[in-house]
């Protein structure tokens, strides 16, 4: 089934792309581990937004919501586990700088 999407698709796509670039820049330009996690969160938000837009435009909002709920649950677990790892890293190196990870033995 091929669908010709309306003009609103392009509006949503623009904002998805802006959020995605913002999150990617936030992850790549920083050396602070917490900021890397914030960048990952922004990336996840852009993906969540696009999934909902895809469900809205294709008329399959229930399926899109089911997938988004799965994404949100996994997002929480990833954030909590990453926060624990960051705290462990801070206790070991007394810093949040990702450069110090190169000196780790493991």
């Amino acid at each position: 089934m091929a669908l010709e999407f309306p003009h609103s698709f392009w509006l949503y796509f623009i904002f998805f792309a802006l959020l995605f670039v913002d999150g990617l820049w936030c992850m790549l330009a920083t050396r602070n581990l917490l900021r890397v996690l914030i960048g990952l969160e922004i990336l996840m938000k852009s993906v969540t937004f696009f999934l909902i837009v895809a469900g809205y435009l294709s008329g399959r909002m229930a399926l899109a919501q089911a997938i988004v709920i799965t994404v949100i649950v996994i997002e929480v677990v990833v954030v909590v586990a990453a926060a624990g790892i960051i705290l462990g890293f801070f206790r070991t190196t007394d810093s949040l700088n990702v450069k110090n990870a190169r000196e780790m033995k493991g």
Partner: protein
Amino acid sequence: MTIMTIILVLMVMAALWASMTSILLRATIALALASATLAVVMYSLGATLAAVLELSVCAGLISVVFVSVISLTQRTPFKDMLKQRRDRLARYWPLPLVLVAGGVALSFVHAPVRIVLPLPGGDGDVRTVMWTLRQLDLFGQILVLLAGVFGVLVLFRKEGKDGA
């Protein structure tokens, strides 16, 4: 400009604030704001259940986790903070320009979009989809949650007398 466009602009601005501010607590608040605006967008598109989950979990729980982690780390000395701010500014100043230029450039392009959707059948209620069609997802979510709880217990455990 419609209300939806204004909300979407607010969402991107909140995300930009989260990535640009030099204070981590403000970045967390900005992230929660981006989540809240995303929840408004979801609600207005008809995804009410996902919107509620986004607002309660992403804007609430994840913000609490971030604030807890920030409170457990030490303050940066003032001299180092000034240096970090200068370094951050050097790395981040092109980001707003890139976003504004990208947004304006894309708004002038109207590419014809044709996407093939292979999904058959009609769309039902979200509860029906979750409990009948996506049961494996639910099992996966339960396993992921258990893995997360187990991971946190391992990461936050206190060392024993022998250091193990």
